[in-house]
């Protein structure tokens, strides 16, 4: 009796007006239902409805592309949470990071964010390595490989800009090493070759306060300006661009013939 009532409840639940308005197709019980499940779901529409056998094998894909995307989601989620507690100013930044041990669940929100960031860099590299080793950059996927290279660059830029935010010794000196290289950019870096060319009379167009490093740091050395710029780059600007390229990357995977495989 109780059993029947239970069954009845779920049948009514899945058959309800509200449920059916959210999930247009019912519980998939046969091949057609399963196909419809993928076709009618926004989150699954990245996938085709069916795949060749080798495409779901771990030893072919290593899961690395998918994990890169998964880690990006984890990073976005933990990153947004961290933004509630972190203020990108010289007075507060370091202490806010210390306080994260007390203010976040189990004190590991920053740990998850940082280790996931390292892991994403590695996952993206291995994804590229896999795509290279299977020759998947070849026609018709040439352009998508290029988008992948752009995404790799943005992964590194995202990680690099995040490196400054804890505002500790490790952070500012690592970024000092990196941003000094910007000052050495040919023509537009103050210490780079060819700067002397860009002058009108005795006035140099590129100086300490108008070169590539200044653009990056908002100052001639790392300080409040750099911290705010890196924060905005890290939390808003680069993620937006990365998402844009990701959308194109995933769409092109489908449009360029789906996952690669032998013909």
């Amino acid at each position: 009796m109780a059993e029947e009532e239970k069954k009845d409840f779920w049948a009514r639940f899945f058959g309800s007006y509200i449920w059916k308005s959210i999930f247009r197709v019912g519980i998939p019980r046969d091949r057609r239902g399963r196909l419809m499940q993928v076709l009618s779901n926004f989150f699954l529409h990245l996938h085709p409805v069916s795949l060749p056998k080798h495409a779901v094998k771990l030893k072919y894909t290593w899961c690395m592309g998918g994990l890169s995307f998964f880690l990006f989601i984890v990073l976005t989620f933990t990153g947004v949470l961290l933004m509630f507690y972190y203020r990108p100013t010289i007075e507060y930044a370091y202490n806010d990071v210390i306080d994260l041990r007390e203010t976040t669940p189990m004190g590991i929100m920053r740990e998850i964010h940082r280790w996931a960031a390292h892991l994403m860099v590695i996952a993206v590299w291995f994804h590229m390595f896999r795509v290279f080793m299977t020759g998947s950059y070849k026609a018709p996927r040439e352009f998508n490989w290029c988008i992948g290279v752009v995404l790799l660059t943005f992964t590194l830029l995202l990680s690099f800009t995040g490196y400054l935010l804890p505002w500790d010794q490790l952070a500012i000196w690592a970024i000092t090493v990196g941003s000094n290289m910007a000052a050495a950019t040919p023509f537009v870096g103050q210490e780079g070759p060819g700067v002397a060319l860009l002058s009108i009379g005795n006035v140099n167009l590129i100086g300490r306060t108008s070169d590539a490093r200044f653009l990056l740091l908002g100052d001639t050395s790392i300080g409040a300006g750099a911290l705010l710029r890196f924060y905005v780059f890290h939390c808003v600007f680069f993620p937006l661009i990365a998402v844009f390229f990701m959308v194109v990357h995933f769409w092109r995977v489908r449009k360029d013939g789906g996952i690669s495989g032998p013909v």
Partner: protein
Amino acid sequence: MDTLKHVINVLSAPQVSFLAAAIAFFFVFPPTDRFQSWNRRLRLDWLWTVKGGILLHALVIGAFFLSTLDPNFRAIVTKPDNVPIALLLFGTLFFLWLSMKQACDNDARLANDQKPNEYTDPSESKILVWPDLVYIELIAGILCMAALIFWSIALEAPLEEPANPTLSPNPAKAPWYFLGLQEMLVYFDPWLAGVVFPVIIIVGLMSLPYIDTEPGGSGYYSYSDRKLYVSLFMFGWLLLWVYLIIVGAFMRGPNWNFFGPYERWDLHKVVALTNINLSSLIWVKLLNQPLPDNIIIREMFGIAMLGFHFLVIPPLLAMTILKKFYARMGNVKYAVFMFLSMAAVSLPIKMFLRWTINLKYVVAIPGWFNL
């Protein structure tokens, strides 16, 4: 034991280890048929069998954990931000083996006129994304998240003293994924190591599918049919990227001096370095003359060397051993391919010249062009 450690310290210096790795590399990853026949004769393809893989991993993992008994080694490796590099090292080894094993299996199948392992007969029914793929994604996500949470509980993220612009640490290191570029700073000026090389890497990677337009070898692991490109890619990825990251992270101590894996990072280690430009080397030491005042004349040997490297060698190769390759590629593709290859080769050459004759710059025109 100490003698053994000392020997390893000496051997791991880039002068020795990089050279040895660079030479051995082309036998392990043969770029041409001739190298491949050597590879077969030396039975090096055994590395990519299951037994070879187990031995390879046992050796590396065993050596790693034995080394952690050494306090100096342990002090460096267990720095929290060095953990990802250890992960990268083992991951690279594993995925390298996994891809090469599948490539060798497929090579054998293709040689027997069989289809590669990845091939599915079109008559076979396909696998449904719901539930087969969605399940895998779910499980992969859960495992990844579990590993992350475990890692985060076990290991605190590094946080040093508050930022102090007046107190620079020694050594000051870039984030670990840029350590290869920082290592290049030893041999090249910042505008090359920090700006030109990254641009060449990005542009080079993007141009790959437009250079390698050979139709076969897409969608399955293979080596023999694509050996030139795989070998060159591996050279860049394993030797010029991963290897240099490991050297930069584990073996570069105070003042960016080299330290063997079991050596203490001694602040006062003094390495006598009197680097000398090619111009002084030739004019002053070889010809016993003062340096000419005219910059172009002073630097003509270096400019000639650069010109020879980038402008003479590629056409020479096109006319001799790469004749067929050149005919297949055409002018533009061949030129881009050669520029990228010669640029990649120029790194080890400059490193080698630094180690042997303490060469500072091939061409030194201060404020303009130091190379």
